[in-house]
């Protein structure tokens, strides 16, 4: 198989969609939060918490879906902490977010060590299995690429649609968008800006938690250190790439994941001639390039990262 032929293999696209799934959850989560005007750099740590909480629930005998729920709750708990620090208290969103990431990840590793003091190889669970959608999975090429995924992947795509509907078609979504553009306008309509922002951060963090749990419950079957591996940071870039729109962000996640899947396969093909690090770099280099092109035209939420205090201008 040569490099071009690879592009047309269904297995490449199936892998891309799998790789994209946690990014989609995380990006949507960040997007909701930023649309309300709050940058959440706690994302990397919140994903780590979600990954562990989901996996640990299942390891303790819980159902896989219960694991997903627990991951969402654990993620939103840390989101609530971030929100309280940056919304009513108005602390720096950058510094607080990085603090949350360090705190959440360290606490997770500590808990893991407490729970498994002696373990050398990570314990395994039985993860989500691929579920072929009847009829659709029989379509040549597309069936294999799209419709033989695990349920969490389908949920990621559904979530993208729901978030889009929420933001653009519901009154609450309008309040969230306005809170990120001009919080004074929200206040002037008798809606509590603080409440809107906190809820947006908490809901976004729940999605980030599910994004983390995808890694332990669907992509792999165990939890290990550093497994989130920068996916949170990529999600932050994807929000910018997607100009704060769920549809475009979904495309961005797929694009990035496709690069990633492609480089993995190219490595095997050309690994003898080119150092593998070059391939590892590829998706990141391309995403920087894409960012430069896309974000020049992006119109960011005007009140992003600006704390709102009642009665002040």
């Amino acid at each position, binding site marked *: 198989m040569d490099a071009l032929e690879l592009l047309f293999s269904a297995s490449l696209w199936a892998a891309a969609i799998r790789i994209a799934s946690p990014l989609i959850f995380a990006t949507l989560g960040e997007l909701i939060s930023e649309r309300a005007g709050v940058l959440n750099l706690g994302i990397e740590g919140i994903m780590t918490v979600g990954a562990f909480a989901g996996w640990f629930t299942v390891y303790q005998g819980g159902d896989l879906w219960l694991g997903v729920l627990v991951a969402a709750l654990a993620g939103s708990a840390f989101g609530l902490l971030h929100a309280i620090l940056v919304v009513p208290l108005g602390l720096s969103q950058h510094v607080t977010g990085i603090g949350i990431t360090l705190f959440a990840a360290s606490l997770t590793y500590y808990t893991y060590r407490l729970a498994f003091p002696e373990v050398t190889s990570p314990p395994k669970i039985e993860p989500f299995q691929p579920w072929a959608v009847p009829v659709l999975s029989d379509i040549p090429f597309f069936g294999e690429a799209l419709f033989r995924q695990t349920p969490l992947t389908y949920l990621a795509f559904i979530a993208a649609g729901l978030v889009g509907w929420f933001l653009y*078609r*519901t*009154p*609450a979504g*309008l*309040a969230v*968008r*306005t809170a990120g*553009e*001009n919080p*004074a*306008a*929200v*206040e*002037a*309509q*008798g*809606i509590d800006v603080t409440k809107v922002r906190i809820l947006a951060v908490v809901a976004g963090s729940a999605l980030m938690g599910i994004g983390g749990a995808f890694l332990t419950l669907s992509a792999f079957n165990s939890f290990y250190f550093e497994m989130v591996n920068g996916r949170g940071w990529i999600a932050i870039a994807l929000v910018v790439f997607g100009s704060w729109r769920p549809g475009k962000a979904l495309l961005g996640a797929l694009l990035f994941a496709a690069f990633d899947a492609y480089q993995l396969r190219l490595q095997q093909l050309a690994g003898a001639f080119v150092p593998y690090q070059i391939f590892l770099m590829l998706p990141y280099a391309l995403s920087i390039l894409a960012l430069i092109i896309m974000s020049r035209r992006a*119109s960011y*939420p*005007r009140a992003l990262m600006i704390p709102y205090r*009642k*009665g002040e*201008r």
Partner: protein
Amino acid sequence: MTDTVLSLDRISKRFGALIANDAISFDLKQGEIVALLGENGAGKTTLMNILFGHYVADDGSISVFGKSLPPGQPRAAIQAGIGMVHQHFTLADNLTVLDNIMLGTEKPWRLSSRKSEARQRLTKLAQDFGLAIEPDKTVAELSVGERQRVEILKVLYREARILILDEPTAVLTPQESQSLFATLKKLTAQGLSIIFISHKLNEVLSVSDRIFVLRAGRLVAERPTKGTTRKELAELMVGRPIAEPKIEPQPHGDIHVEIRAVTTADGLDHADLTLHGGEILGLAGVSGNGQTALANLLSGLSPPKSGTLHIFGEDAARWTPDLVTRKRIARIPEDRHAEGLVADMSVTENVIAEIYREPRFNKRGFLDWRAAEGFAEEIIKGFDVKCPSPTTRVRLLSGGNMQKLILGRTLSLAPRFILACQPARGLDIGAVSYVHERLIQARKSGASVLLISDDLDEILALADRVAVIYRGRISEPLPRQQVTIQELGLMMAGHGFSEGDAHAA
């Protein structure tokens, strides 16, 4: 027509030691326009924020349509039929007009917004009140006048019966203001009641039925509009007699500034202007028509792309801001917070910011703080800046005192050319007359003053000649005696400026 729709009873509010509102009572009747007149800091905005539930009063009560209004709840105020058009628009620029208007009008957890019904209602409302608007444009695409229309529609959409307008004309051209006043009359004809907050006497006199004057947190007078005068109101507002500025005619001196067909990257388009010593030239215009570009050009911030610029007879096209300062050109920047001062630095640091390299502030390569403080003290005394000491942080000064500090900093250098951008913006009458007095003094001593302002009253009070800037072009200046506010208003809207000829006016 005589039903009372709103009454405030002994409303008081303190912020620390400051009494913002001191037992204020007044009432509003159906179908009338009441003006709330007062200087900055008189307590107008605080009072309206209490009425609208942004603040909670320490004392007193409010009743609307005979029912008492629970304090501190904007939502309750909206439901009681009160609508507020804020001084700074509360619109989200990136959202559409429709989105902005719908915000908060539906139960938050509805699964789907009723956009098409909302669009219909909005269109009908816009027709009924003659407020034409395109619902699907984003607010960023609208002019300032249109944005205000959206704000008013937003309030009407919520079925408000009482409208509060906070300094609504601050950002409008005279024509836009006139059309706003016409709208307000239309609204009252339909039984709405309006509270009009302003510090502009002419507007208050032309639009209202009754006038309440606030001063230092207290209600000092109530006057029927028909039975009062501009002079009486001004004195009630300030609390003492006001002297109108006096300008005695004097001959022009040499040419100080000569701009010929200058085009710049940031907005001037073949602009011409000549300024003589001993004159004040007023430049009127709606903000955003190249005033900032002209100020940047004259301060050395942006060089001309084409055309010539001479100052004091020298070619000044490539002058840097530093050189401009050293040539004794005084600048009073448009935005004193952003460009004029560094809020978190002390008075001393701010007054030497432009000139700290001069030998008198240096001792063997180190800053001579004693000399700098001496200079600061001179300014504080000479320009009547109210501040505890030269080490006070500028942030703690009032707007008027900040402006006096800027004036002192530049005027104490005996400038020959003064570039004054909106020098009286946001100041109260007392501070305004002080600033004007200083500019008139500078004119007397032979300096040239370019007064860029969007306040036509200010220009007509001070300027020897008046020009209008529109889309980067400057009209031929006319002697003040030959222009009227109406003509200037038309020119500010572009009349007399043709495409090819910058000097059609």
